């Protein structure tokens, strides 16, 4: 945690009742970060999720109205797919798109906004997802997706710790 302000760790906040925002600084100029987010051969190399998963399908039609489609795969598990349509594309600074998971665990389509701001050769990346309702957002975030958001997560941790401390003995 001593990396200094420009190499901040991933931060997750909730600026409005339907949104979750992830902010992260990358030590690279903006056009490279933009390429890494929008060129399938690059995106496939890092947006792979938990270890053991790959991203065999990554199709991006980077135009307003153009679709994108991602599929993640893990041996012995069902594929996980998502996709949507681009609503705004401004190279190399902004992408807005719709987001819908095949399993639709988010209860409807969300809208993602990626904003890249360059500062001293580094790029501040802000990734916002606006969920279909406040309830869905709350479901995702209020339960404590990160300690940054909150007390609720700490409460759950305490809850689990006290449960563990009590042991299995009832």
């Amino acid at each position: 945690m001593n990396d200094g302000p420009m190499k901040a760790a991933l931060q997750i906040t909730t600026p409005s009742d339907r949104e979750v925002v992830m902010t992260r600084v990358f030590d690279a100029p903006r056009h490279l970060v933009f390429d890494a987010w929008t060129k399938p051969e690059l995106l496939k190399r890092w947006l792979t999720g938990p270890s053991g998963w790959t991203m065999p399908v990554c199709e991006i039609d980077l135009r307003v109205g153009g679709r994108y489609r991602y599929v993640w795969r893990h041996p012995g598990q069902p594929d996980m797919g998502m996709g949507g349509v681009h609503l705004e594309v401004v190279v190399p600074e902004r992408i807005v798109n719709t987001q819908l998971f095949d399993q639709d665990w988010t209860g409807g389509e969300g809208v993602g906004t990626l904003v890249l701001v360059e500062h001293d050769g580094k790029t501040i990346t802000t990734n916002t997802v606006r969920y279909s309702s406040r309830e869905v957002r709350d479901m995702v975030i209020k339960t404590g997706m990160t300690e940054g958001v909150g007390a609720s997560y700490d409460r759950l941790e305490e809850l689990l710790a006290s449960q563990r401390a009590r042991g299995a003995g009832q």
Partner: protein
Amino acid sequence: MTSAGLDATFAALADPTRRAILARLASGEASVTELAEPFDISQPGISKHLKVLERAGLISRGRDAQRRPRKLEAQPLAEATDWLERYREIWEGNYQRLDALLGELKSAQPKPERKKRRLTKPQGEQR
């Protein structure tokens, strides 16, 4: 855990009163009356919350037929928090791989930033 199961767990956890009830039950089983005590909510109100928690599998009823105490079921809660922690870890992992990739790209083509291009007409500001 199925995603429907997780949905029910998260929906149940999204309410502060229900989280407080769970916190109370973490220190031992309690009757509906005992659970209602610290809250400024009617007993039927508490019962409603208990129903949601029960449906999500987060609590169950104890043996005593008279008091019908509720007790915490730790497993679904543990699965939910595991899942949430994984979400953050997933993004940390993604972004660390992106760091490495960007390092590679930088050394491969150390050029100044290109001029902005607009591929398409920008639409109205997103709210």
